């Protein structure tokens, strides 16, 4: 047993005081400006604190209202609507993550001129320069923005040829340096329905499409809708079969099947709920019900060969797969419905979207902008770093086994990137749920028609426009519970997925 001498004790005490001298202000700051407000807001959410009634100039007593503010959330139409907006905007996250990954993979290749690539780069640069000149010659010189953008593209290409991938990495990361508000204003200009470069470029293409649609038989395009329904049913059947097989092989627990099946039926419910597709939805409903019965019957008859360790085993993987299939089904449904309506839409000529001024397009507009931002975000940097950490021996082994580039990616790169993807997924989900305030405030003021009001913007409105601080705190805590639950879910299932 060691004895502590008085001098060493004094020294440790002195060291402790010195450390606290440095850390103290920071700890105090975190306590006063972070921990205390967070704890205080918990209490706030259970009171009737209203700025109009309770502040230093009003002597009304503060009352405990229990869970009233939380109960109110579910009766408040606005909360449900704005939660829907927030979740809708989050649908862009998988695309944004995929965009970051693709950007990182591209930026991990050497682009410096040399070898066989030079020829390809030169062709690309020449094509851009030629199209730029052509645009000027055919009279589109008035659209200076197109010339400018094409010219910039040429410049970037040329710089990449000489400076290598570092130049591109810098270009890609530039959006991250730029202040958010500045990029929001830039995108507002790009989305301008009449004078924005997006619609200026899109409208001639849509005019050509109008002509093409008018030449095609309307029944042909309408037939595409039925094909879309068939595709949706096929996807449902295939995924359900895969789930049953996994269950039979002991890779999937019984309870773990429930949530993926619910997710897979959502597109069918959307078809039934959507006015445009309701008339034909019965067919899909019948097909889905039949598939469910059939797979259920097979499950009961054939039983399982192996038993999973727990009833929730494999739930994370199944859920992610179901989620992706669900999004795919919804995309197919949207495309089918659009093709079905195309002849009618083209009758008066197809018009470019009104983007931020149309409630139906406002959210996708913000998602596209988010996708652009994600391409050059920290996520891309994380992926770049992770790519450099993939052991080369694995690629060499794959090459020896004769793996194609696609197989190299799916069986080597993608599994090695799983921890990074997991981290990015968790952080993006948290950011997605909390975000949207700056965009809404700068670009749309939450409109049009409340289409871009997210929960974070709603908290601001309730807190400072109406003074209902307790209700705003309740919304904030509801948001926290949502974030926490999803993160917990991610940790529970996603972590297992990563480690498997």
């Amino acid at each position, binding site marked *: 047993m060691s004895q502590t001498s008085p001098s060493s004790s004094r020294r440790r005490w002195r060291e402790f005081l010195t450390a606290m001298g440095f850390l103290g202000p920071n700890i105090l700051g975190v306590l006063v400006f972070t921990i205390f407000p967070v704890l205080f807001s918990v209490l706030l959410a259970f009171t009737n604190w209203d700025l109009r009634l309770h502040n230093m100039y009003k002597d009304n007593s503060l009352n405990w209202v229990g869970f009233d503010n939380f109960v109110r959330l579910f009766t408040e139409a606005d909360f449900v609507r704005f939660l829907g907006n927030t979740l809708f905007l989050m649908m862009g996250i998988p695309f944004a993550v995929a965009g970051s990954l693709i950007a990182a993979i591209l930026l991990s290749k050497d682009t410096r001129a040399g070898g066989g690539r030079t020829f390809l780069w030169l062709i690309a640069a020449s094509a851009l320069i030629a199209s730029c000149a052509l645009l000027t010659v055919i009279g589109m010189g008035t659209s200076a923005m197109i010339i400018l953008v094409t010219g910039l593209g040429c410049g970037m290409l040329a710089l990449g040829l000489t400076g290598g991938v570092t130049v591109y990495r810098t270009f890609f990361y530039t959006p991250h340096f730029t202040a958010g508000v500045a990029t929001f204003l830039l995108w507002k200009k790009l989305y*301008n329905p*009449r*004078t924005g470069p997006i619609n200026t470029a899109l409208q001639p293409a849509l005019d050509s499409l109008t002509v093409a649609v008018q030449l095609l038989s309307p029944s042909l395009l309408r037939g595409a809708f039925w094909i879309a329904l068939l595709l949706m049913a096929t996807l449902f059947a295939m995924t359900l079969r895969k789930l049953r097989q996994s269950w039979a092989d002991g890779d999937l627990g019984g309870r773990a099947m429930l949530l993926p099946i619910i997710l897979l039926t959502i597109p069918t419910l959307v078809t039934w709920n959507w006015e445009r597709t309701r008339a034909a939805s019965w067919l899909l409903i019948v097909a889905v019900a039949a598939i469910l019965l059939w797979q259920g019957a097979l499950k009961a008859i054939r039983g399982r060969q192996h038993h999973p360790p727990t009833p929730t085993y494999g739930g994370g993987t199944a859920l992610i797969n179901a989620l992706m299939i669900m999004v795919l089904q919804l995309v197919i449904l949207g495309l089918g419905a659009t093709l079905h309506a195309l002849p009618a839409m083209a009758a008066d000529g197809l018009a470019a979207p009104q983007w931020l001024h149309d409630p139906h397009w406002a959210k996708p507009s913000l998602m596209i902008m988010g996708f652009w931002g994600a391409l050059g975000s920290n996520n891309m940097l994380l992926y770049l770093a992770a790519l450099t950490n993939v052991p080369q021996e694995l690629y060499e082994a794959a090459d020896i086994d004769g793996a194609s580039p696609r197989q190299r990616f799916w069986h080597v790169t993608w599994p090695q990137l799983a921890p990074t993807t997991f981290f990015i997924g968790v952080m993006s989900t948290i950011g997605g749920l909390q975000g949207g305030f700056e965009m809404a405030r700068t670009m749309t003021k939450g409109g049009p*028609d409340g289409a871009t009001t997210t929960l974070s913007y709603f908290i601001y409105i309730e807190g*400072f426009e*109406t003074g209902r601080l307790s209700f705003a705190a309740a919304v904030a805590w509801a948001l926290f519970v949502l974030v926490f639950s999803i993160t917990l879910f991610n940790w529970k299932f996603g972590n297992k997925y990563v480690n498997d």
Partner: protein
Amino acid sequence: MKVVLLCSFVLLLLSSVALYLSFPDVASEVPVIYWVTDPNPARQQQVQLFHAWMTAEGHTTADGKPVVQLRLDTANQDVSKKIIQGVSGVGSDIMDMGPLHYFVDIGLLQDVTEWGQEGSFGPEQTHPAIVPAITDRGRQYAFPCNVFTNMFWVNNATFRKYGIEPPTGRWTFEEFEHTGKQLDAAANPPGQRRMVFLAPYVPTQLLYQSMGLSALNESLTRCTIDDPRYAAALELKHKWMFEDHILPTAADQASFDTESGYAGSVLQLFNQGNYGMFPMGRFALIQLRKFGSLDLGLAEPPHGGFPNTQIFTRCASIYVGSENKELARYFLAYLAGEPYNMQIIRDADGLPPNPLFMEREEFSRPAEFPNEWGIHDAFAEAARSIAIPQIRSEFVLTAVLERHLTDCENGFINGRLTATEASRLATRRIDEEIARSLIENPHLKPLYRQRLAQQAEIERLRAAGETVPSDLIANPFYRKYYTFKGWSR
């Protein structure tokens, strides 16, 4: 390292002390009061005028200096900043206000009723139409810095260019539509993007008000938007935007927008002839004068039977937590006085807060701007005759009321709702908000019950064909409307 850190600490300490000593409050011999306002260059001159006025009025120290020093604070004009600073006890002494009732509800504003009577800045010193905007339940909380009456500025040259008689004075919806169609046909070649519109917008509120409808009932206890007149106003606006192309759509407006200056690009587009007219107060002249001697005219907003327009004010209030409230009140007295009012007249920064000064020759016929003669008097006349302040109920916040109305109107404009559905939805949401407000603020219930009794009495008198005593009507719109129709006494 220790020495370096210690030196840094001492340096920071000294810098902090130096910074503190440089604060105007510390450096000044007299108390300093802060005025939170916009960064208009005219404010500096107004501060100088205030100091000169203080000296002239004898509010000076022994050595002849004003007893208080006024400083501008243009960084904290945002409403949320004012609220947060106010409830934290560190608000500015004087605050510029738009609608002040929310601040009164929070308790941030000093009641200046008695000071107003003593210091000649009571409600009787300003425009009668704007009194509801500076008072709350009979108590005064502010005095106007300037007053805005929305009228349609007309670029006569634009109309004459297309051979159309420029509008002037009072006109109906039909005349407005007819002129708009004429302008559209003459100025916009078929098959090309429309570049000329009659006006950038017409406030929806003016449309349904001119048909005799207000968003709230006479006692301000219930929403009354679920009415065919509201639906008709929405449909009319939709027609003007999408069928007649008299007004630009949101997309057309966005294509014009330059995101700069107040009113965005409207004034530049008016000057260039893209808009034949636009609704704004007299303060539009601050910008319009920069365009040279325009051929200007003025028209009232179009009406559907009851001519009316909106009247607003940017007013100054004293922060209840100010340590210099007694001194800050001099500023409100200054706003009612000659130097300030004449400066507002010269700068054309809205109407002067004290209407007495509108009788001056400098107001009606400014020597430097003969092209404006007649216009100033028209604004003054509108403030006297047809102007109605913003509707404000104790039972629903104005911002919330407007948010619901705007949301539902947008729902209709974007095709999500029919006009009738929009009016029903707005009514339901606003009535729910009133009910919620009464639950959350039980102290409002006696007033609410009293107002309900007033409403019942109004309805009884109306049903019996009798006139209604004016003081029974809490809604300023209906006070005016009932007088117009001869229904009140």
